[in-house]
């Protein structure tokens, strides 16, 4: 189970990297004739029961008022694999594009946006996790190694941050900064804010390990061999925290993905032009949209899948049964 979960996490990362090849359409391309189009499943069995090369039925508009479409069983377009730089695409898109997960308000392909959005969402989360580990390990290491007043000051600060409801801190920090920024600035800003909220978790764990490790013989040996304080801390004590820091990283990653989604959902994150799981969910803020076009919740399913995989990876260490 654990290996499977770890493998699926790796798969998600791979999918995000390979987005340009896997996405059947350009994530920004708007298909005006297919606003809120439903998912187009690939078929292998035709209406007469015979097997075929995978194909799709093109969509046709049933009601423009209600934005309802259905599949036209009379026509079928075969899929093409490994052609035109794409994993799969339609052999012929005169009858409209292939929208495997449907389309959004602007008529953009949801699957392509989901794949490119994974780059943004995972990118922010990974950057934030790395930054949180960097700050947390340094602060926690210093606190555990130096002890005394340094320890007291750092850990009090960490506890204070931990007590605050994270969402509000993130909201307040984000709202205090200019709202309209270039997307790279939003990206690094978000990662920075998340790291500021996330580091105490790492610091607390690292401090506990370092505080016990430094009393052990190997640390004393390093000191008596004349190793500098920095060398003892960074060369000997911090490496002992590797496993713990790894577990923390896997815990932080999904919460940062969720934080991005929350910020963008309420309109303080990425703009609509930048595909991310949160900016995609933003379109689902309307009850009618969720009710009529449930495929708009696809990013929520993606967030759930990543979170579940992460939770399964650390399941054993979090449950001692």
């Amino acid at each position, binding site marked *: 189970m654990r290996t499977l979960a770890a493998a699926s996490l790796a798969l998600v990362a791979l999918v995000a990297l390979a987005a340009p090849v896997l996405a059947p359409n350009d994530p920004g391309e708007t298909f005006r004739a297919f606003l809120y189009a439903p998912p187009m499943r690939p078929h292998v069995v035709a209406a007469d029961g015979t097997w075929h090369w995978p194909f799709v039925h093109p969509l046709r508009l049933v009601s423009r008022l209600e934005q309802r479409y259905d599949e036209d069983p009379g026509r079928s377009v075969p899929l093409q694999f490994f052609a035109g730089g794409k994993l799969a695409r339609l052999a012929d898109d005169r009858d409209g594009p292939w929208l495997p997960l449907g389309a959004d308000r602007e008529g953009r392909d949801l699957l392509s946006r989901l794949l490119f959005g994974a780059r943004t969402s995972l990118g922010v989360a990974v950057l934030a996790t790395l930054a949180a580990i960097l700050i947390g390990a340094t602060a926690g290491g210093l606190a555990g190694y130096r002890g005394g007043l340094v320890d007291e000051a750092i850990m009090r600060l960490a506890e204070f941050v931990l007590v605050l409801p994270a969402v509000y801190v993130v909201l307040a920090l984000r709202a205090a900064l200019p709202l309209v920024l270039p997307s790279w600035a939003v990206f690094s800003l978000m990662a920075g804010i998340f790291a500021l909220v996330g580091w105490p978790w790492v610091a607390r764990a690292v401090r506990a390990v370092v505080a016990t490790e430094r009393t052990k013989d190997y640390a004393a040996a390093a000191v008596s061999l004349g190793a500098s304080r920095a060398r003892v801390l960074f060369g000997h004590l911090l490496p002992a925290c590797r496993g713990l820091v790894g577990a923390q990283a896997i815990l932080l990653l999904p919460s940062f993905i969720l934080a991005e989604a929350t910020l963008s959902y309420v309109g303080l994150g990425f703009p609509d032009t930048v595909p991310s799981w949160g900016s995609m969910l933003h379109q689902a803020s309307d009850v009618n949209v969720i009710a009529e076009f449930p495929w708009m919740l696809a990013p929520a399913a993606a967030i759930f899948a990543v979170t*579940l995989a992460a939770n399964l990876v650390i399941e054993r260490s979090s*449950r001692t049964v």
Partner: protein
Amino acid sequence: MVRYLGRRVIAAAVLVAVVSSGALLLTRLAPGDFASELFGTGVSAGSMAQERARYGLDRPIASQYLEWLGRAARLDFGVSIVYHRPVVELVRQRAANTAILALAALLLATAMGLPAGIVTGSRRRGALASVIRGLSVVLLSLPSLITSLVLVMVAARTGWLPTGGMQSAGAWDAGTLSGLADLARHLPLPALAIALPLAAMIERVQSQSLGEVMAMPFALSTLARGVPRRRLVWRDALRPSIGPVASTYGFVLGGLLSGSFVVEVVTAWPGLGRLMYDALRARDLYLVAGCAAAGSVFLALGSLLSDLVSAWADPRVRQRQAGGAPGAAE
């Protein structure tokens, strides 16, 4: 005990002061203010300056802050710039709504999580325990944002429950009873969205803690004396195992507030979270500070409550608290 409570009240006051001051200063120092948010809506520069002067935004930060602090100490948090109403009045009403939601969610989460944790903590194997464990991982991976969106979708498609809001128009006019009944129809969806991930967390903590107690020598000797397992769990092991869950409550409250923000936005629940969000967007700094103060009061109350429950469950904690040793409470 009195000394202990006194210390806690002082610590809570410090928390409230620090958080609300921080929120005020952050909003004040941020580029732009409520007047510049009005820019482009046809407001002239002269009336903008007038508006600024009216709310003291043209004065240096230090003097503005000190005046606010002096008033806040007397529980006067100023007037909201957007709503033109006293902050205290606005916050009181919204905080009550959030409290209703949070309390319902907490009760629901405890009612689901605690028994589930007792089941999984008291036995290693068994179909029921396995099902609960699996469900718990899934629920833990479904944050309130996703749960509330999915619940809203289900509610909208089936029409079983209202998809948003706290009351239907005119429900309270027909009398208190129909008003309450209406509230009871609006409450389950948002409360469940907050409670489900929380229940999974409570299940985990309780399961682990009960498992540890069941592995203690006293539990083993009780079993060896022939006391039935069921009786050991309910009579002897449950009480010493309740401490960790009780102490997570103080910590859960932060998560409860965070979760309630998302759910309030998704389901249009008129609570503190939405008010805070609107205030932040509009740079309504007195309202931001007021909301932050109310939120930190919630936090302080929660951690106090969780300490009291721990003390009730475990005499050792009581002694530590009375002796004034740091650690357990802080």
